[in-house]
């Protein structure tokens, strides 16, 4: 479904991604982890073209990001993304947040979009909050609305960029539960997170990154039981200690 092939990215002379390659199959839940500043977020933002890169290529659903024939907007509409700080549109209600892109990008009718939004809100446990504005919700609730907003586009794959790291501890689980349900329903997911519990419950693979390099790319169980590199071992023990 997604093929990342030798991606390199520089900010000026500073290299942030070095020869990153990986492929992600339909239905996989790939957890991307590593120390902060290792290039995880940058890498997944390359997948939907929010970040550009100088060398290599990424193919999503047989379409190359770099190809001039690819309509990047079309491609993005099929790739959902959830952000660290939710990024709900503050001037729109939850329902309006969810229905904006389906109406404007997919040209769906208003009624159809609203019906779908209500179903999705129910799915993330927020049926009662559709008419509220984001500022009236807690962080955990906002993030669940953001997930519903991405799902409304019926994406082929969902990208999560540290979806729980801006949340207070008591709200992390309500978001993770929604993500676990989503994973079990067969959604293809790429998740940048430090929540190793989530990785162990539903993750199929781990990409461990350090300093812009994918150091390990292995099945989840293997990674946690027998990490190969010293860097991964150091990282895991620092996470466990926390």
């Amino acid at each position, binding site marked *: 479904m997604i093929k990342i092939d030798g991606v390199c990215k520089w900010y000026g002379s500073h290299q942030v991604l070095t020869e990153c390659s990986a492929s992600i199959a339909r239905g996989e839940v790939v957890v991307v982890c590593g120390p902060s500043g290792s290039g995880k977020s940058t890498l997944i933002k390359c997948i939907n073209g*929010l970040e550009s890169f100088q060398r290599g290529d990424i193919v999503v659903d047989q379409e190359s990001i770099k190809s001039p024939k690819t309509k990047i*907007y079309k491609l993005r509409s099929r790739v*959902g993304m959830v952000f660290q700080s939710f990024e709900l549109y503050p001037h729109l209600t939850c329902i309006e947040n969810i229905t904006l*892109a389906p109406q404007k990008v997919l040209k769906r009718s208003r009624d159809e979009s609203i019906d779908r939004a209500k179903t999705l809100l129910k799915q993330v446990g927020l049926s009662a909050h559709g008419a509220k504005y984001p500022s009236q919700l807690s962080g955990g609730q906002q993030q669940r609305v953001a997930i519903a907003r*991405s799902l409304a586009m019926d994406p082929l794959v969902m990208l999560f960029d540290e979806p729980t790291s801006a949340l207070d501890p008591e709200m992390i689980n309500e978001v993770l539960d929604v993500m676990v349900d989503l994973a079990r329903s067969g959604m293809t997911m790429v998740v940048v997170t430090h929540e190793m519990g989530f990785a162990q419950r539903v993750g199929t693979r781990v990409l461990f990154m350090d300093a812009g390099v994918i150091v390990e790319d292995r099945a989840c169980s293997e990674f946690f039981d027998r990490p190969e590199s010293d860097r991964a071992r150091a990282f895991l023990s620092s996470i466990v200690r926390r």
Partner: protein
Amino acid sequence: MSYRWNWGIIFEQPYLSWLLQGLGVTVALSCLAWAIALPLGTLVGSLRTGPYRAIRLLCAWYVQAFRNVPLIVQMFLWFFVFPEVVPKAVGFFLKRQLPIPEFTMGCLCLALYTSARIAEIIRSGLEAAGNGPRNAALASGMTYYQAYRYVLLPMSFRLTMPPLTSEFLAIFKNSSVALTIGVLELTAQSHQVESFTFQGFEAFTAATVLYALISWACLGIAGAVNRQLSNAGGLGTEVAIK
């Protein structure tokens, strides 16, 4: 101090109708110029934060040019210089055939001057809205146009209501500069009443009161608009999470 008061003079003809005509010209000039300046300024301000570097630079120079030359000099440039440097036929049209040339050129000048200032305000609003909503909108497959139209500009307008309000007040005050090219607006008319009657106190007080009423009315309108907007998910602290 010897001064003969005669407050009745401002209610005598023709002075009363001079002042009222002046008020009419001030309001018409300002509102017309605002109707041009707001969309133009919004466009320039948006392009300044857009994806094309050359256009960003061009718009930056647009703003610099209009901000760093006094408005009165710009009035002279439009009225005395512009008709001389354009092709002869256009110049002839501007000088000889254009109906109410002072008003038209004054309005154009005021509109362009104000558009540069609005562009700065809109840009600051777009920057304050941050990269998050932009990424979220693009990630859902919106084009740049859609992202600005449905997400970024609505946020920017809400964030910049106070400076936009004072710019709207300023356009009424700035419109008085058009008297230097012969537009008989409120200040010019009050000055004319003073010259004819030597009742400066009364004439200028009348103008001052009328300007104060305009300000007061504008603040009332802006307050109502602002309340309307903040009922609909006003942007408070929720823009910055954590």
